[in-house]
């Protein structure tokens, strides 16, 4: 049974919430750097800090990664419930 979810960009994920990575729409180089830091489709990430502007901090696979807002806007996630 498909879970109810909505697809948003990572930049829209509020602080404290979890989401599952869906896909990357940035360039190959950026995607490569993101995957080596732990971002892959299906992985659950938690938004650690997001103030709606400026850079943000995401927790992925046990480590914290700072992303520019532009980079976060090119990562799409499923915001599941629970």
């Amino acid at each position: 049974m498909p879970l109810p979810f909505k697809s948003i960009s990572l930049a829209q994920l509020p602080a404290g919430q979890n989401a599952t990575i869906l896909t990357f729409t940035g360039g190959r180089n950026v995607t490569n750097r993101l995957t080596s830091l732990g971002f892959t489709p299906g992985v659950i990430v938690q938004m650690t800090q997001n103030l709606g502007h400026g850079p943000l901090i995401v927790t992925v696979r046990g480590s914290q990664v700072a992303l520019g807002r532009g980079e976060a806007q090119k990562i799409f996630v499923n915001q599941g419930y629970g």
Partner: protein
Amino acid sequence: MSQIDPNTLLTIPKQALHQPPVIALAGQPNMGKSTLFNLLTGLNQHVGNWPGKTVERRSGDFNLNGQQANLVDLPGTYSLTANSPEESIAREFIIREQPDIVVAVVSAANLERSLYLVAELLALPTTVIVALNMIDVAAQEGLVIEPKVLEAALGAPVVPMMATKAIGVHQLLDIISEVLQGKRAFTPNIPEVRADHQAVLAQIVHLIAGYVPEPYPTEWMALKLFEGDSEVTEKMQAALPETIWVSVQSILRQHDDAMLAVASGRYEWIERMIRAAVTRPKIGQIGLTARIDRWAAHPFWGLLILAGVLGLVFWLTFNVGSPVQEWLDVQIVTRLSDLASAWLAGAPFWLQGMIVDGVIGGVGSVLTFIPILVIFFTTFALLEDVGYMARAAYVMDNIMHLMGLHGKSFLPLFLGFGCNVPAIMGARVIDSWPARLLTILIAPLVPCTARMAVVAFIAPAFFGSQALLVTWILVLVSLATLVVSGVLLNLLIFKGQRSAFIMEIPLYHLPNSRTIGLLVWQRNYSFVKKAGTTILGMSLIVWVLSFLPYGDINTSILARFGQWIEPVGRWVGFDWRLTVALITSFPAKENSIATLGVLFGSNSEAGLTQTLRASFSTAAGLSFLVVNMLFIPCLATVAVIRQETNSWMWALLDVAILLVISLLAGGLVYRLALLIGLG
């Protein structure tokens, strides 16, 4: 090695052993790789560059249970896909130089992320030993890991370690020895591509087999093609016959998500390793890091904390460092000059002048800056080592965005307050070339300690009790100029490009005195080396120019040159003496005080202050301070800009830009000051 049973030879790497053995150290950033490198090699290390690259190469000798061995520190990278020169260097070294063993440093506290590089290393034709570092941090977080199980799962030796406390080093050395002697099995469990892409990968392997250039392994090349690695793609395009290349390309085009399949395959493999070896996962608690970061990484409080931290660093640097510097100046340099004068009393006049004024006066006064630099670099290295600098970069990201840069550029710029030379070398942390270049070009606008020393001397002469306020304004003017130049350069030269900001925020941890000590030692060592070579040479040249042809500075070549370009100096309110003082700041910024001392023939600093006050208007004094702050970078800085950009064009362009900026600013300030009656 003739007595070894032929069966055990299977466990020895294919290549012949190096003599002495070569061990490479690999690891992601923040895993304690440098700590382990420093621990093994101590001061026995050579720091240079990788051939043809501006990437630091560190290697050293260490004692491997009585045998000498060579340790090469590979650049810290998250993966081995050629996104950056660092990644390319690390993998090329392993494939081409074939080290006997690669020691992969991973963090027990963050196995999931750090095993990613191990997954890449195991796919290469080399023997890997895993140094499972930071077991203490893992234990604090409630993690329980069984090294033996991890070893069995990986098929590679695993050594639990605490590099900061030198625990586990002997075991590591023993295992290295055992592997070298062929006493250890190495049957790595190599990660595979995600199941749905395995058939396609096999197809590529089949297509390229027989065409892969030596010494690259075919499977690995196929995997990297699959990942879309630009370097490998280029190599294979050149090596493959046209028809095969077309088929490979069409397969790759149909599977443009292959990169994610490869990465996912590696993480699936990692999850299997972790499921086996980690018997108790991390406790979900709010750690110290999260609690500190609520403040330190906050966009407002974080900036305030950063300002406080910077203030403290400068306060320490100048309040502790400056008195020591003055003491050294009086007790050592002046005494040495007197001694040399007495000793050379019978020598020719020119020789005495050259030694006393040229060598001791020039190089000696530069070397007295060492205490200031030691304090600055120590506090910087401390902040870096505990993990604070990543937060500083993060909170500065918004401001750096104005210039098309991102937070990481803040770190080298901050280093510039100590000395611009390490700042420009420090720009290497920035991944994209345009951003690195822009950072290098604006770095000389950060006021270094030498310029601050000139300000600290000149400002009181003209502003008395308000000197401190004027000093702060000058620093702010410099930084504002830096931002404005950055914005303009970004628009003009770089067309507003912006590079991706992706940066790991490491956990805070206790500082390691060895790591900090070595960092401070290396940064100061390169400064001393510079003083002994470039600065010594330039001091001598300046001295010769101020001596020839009649042995009197007022009629010297230098004076005539100053008089010749005085019209330029007059635009900013200088006479020929201030102009010459400014020009002699080129070999080393603080020279301008020494030059003024020589030109006004006063030996005591107090005397010089009064003479300056009497000789120049406040407007001229202020203009001199502003031009001094913004003037062309010192000789060593220009040399290092040329080295890091590998181009005289950028180095000279930067000199030209700063020359224009400083003269414009000086002229403007001079006229404004006259207008408000500071004549």
